[in-house]
């Protein structure tokens, strides 16, 4: 069922410009030479915003039945969330300061 009204191509151009602006912000933040962890956090937040816009508008998830979104996204997010268990080990390696060849 496609009950919701999808944007026209002109509407998509607006979204495309928005995504380009986000890329511009990412490059600007990189050139600002922020500390690594601050830059990483900023870039990840912006990347997730881009991904959400891409999923909802370019991939039309916003205009499909909500059951599709709720069937797919929580499962993917859960799997990616569970991968975060690796960080303590990565930071342990970094704190040992052992150069890895």
């Amino acid at each position, binding site marked *: 069922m496609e009950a919701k009204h999808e944007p026209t191509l002109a509407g998509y151009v607006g979204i495309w410009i928005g995504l380009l602006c986000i890329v511009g912000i990412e490059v600007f933040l990189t*050139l600002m*030479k922020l500390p690594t962890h601050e830059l990483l956090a900023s*870039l990840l937040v912006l*990347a997730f915003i*881009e991904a959400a816009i*891409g999923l909802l508008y370019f*991939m039309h998830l916003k205009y499909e*039945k909500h*059951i599709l979104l709720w069937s797919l996204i929580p499962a*993917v997010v859960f799997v990616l969330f569970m991968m975060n268990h690796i960080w303590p080990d990565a930071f342990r390696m970094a704190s040992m300061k052992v150069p890895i060849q």
Partner: protein
Amino acid sequence: MSEAEITMSAGQGAAMEASPYGIQSKKLTMWLFIASDAVTFGAILFGYSYLRAGTPNWPTPFEAGSIVNGVIMTFVLLTSSLTMLGAVIAAKQGRKSACIQWLGATIVLGIIFAALHLREWFRMFHEGWSLSNNPMGGTTLFGATFFCITGLHLMHVISGIIALVVIAIGYNTDWLDAGHVETTGLYWHFVDLVWMFVFPLLYLMNVGR
């Protein structure tokens, strides 16, 4: 396509329960593939991040000027998503000629992206980078992760270009329908979406500070 049309397309007189998702099975299949591929890319990006965080002598080979190529690649790929949307809209409206033109534009932009990608690779090869070599000294893991992740993404782009060519030919000859164009569009947008993570994590995070 409406639920009724989906049910009707199953065969003349078929008494089928409507899809709970309200989409064609091929589109649902593509969504399932995208979910699994998102996890695949998520895993390798987590692996890269693990090595990046755990390696004290991680190199940052990119200069501010050298990310221009990456910015152009991002612009080209984002624009190809827009032309893909044009193809999907035209296909849904039954404007075959316009759809083929939009698909052609998407294919050309995809080829430009792949060419820029390969140019970047060859520049790095020329500087001495490889899967197992680091001309800056220190860990060789940068080359291994960079070429593997961008290579996997490039493989997706090339596969997408081939799929788009097949879809364009099939749609032009009435062998395939608007649903096939839309389903391939989902794949193409996903490839674009993955780049939204690859570009900042592999390029911008490795600019020398």
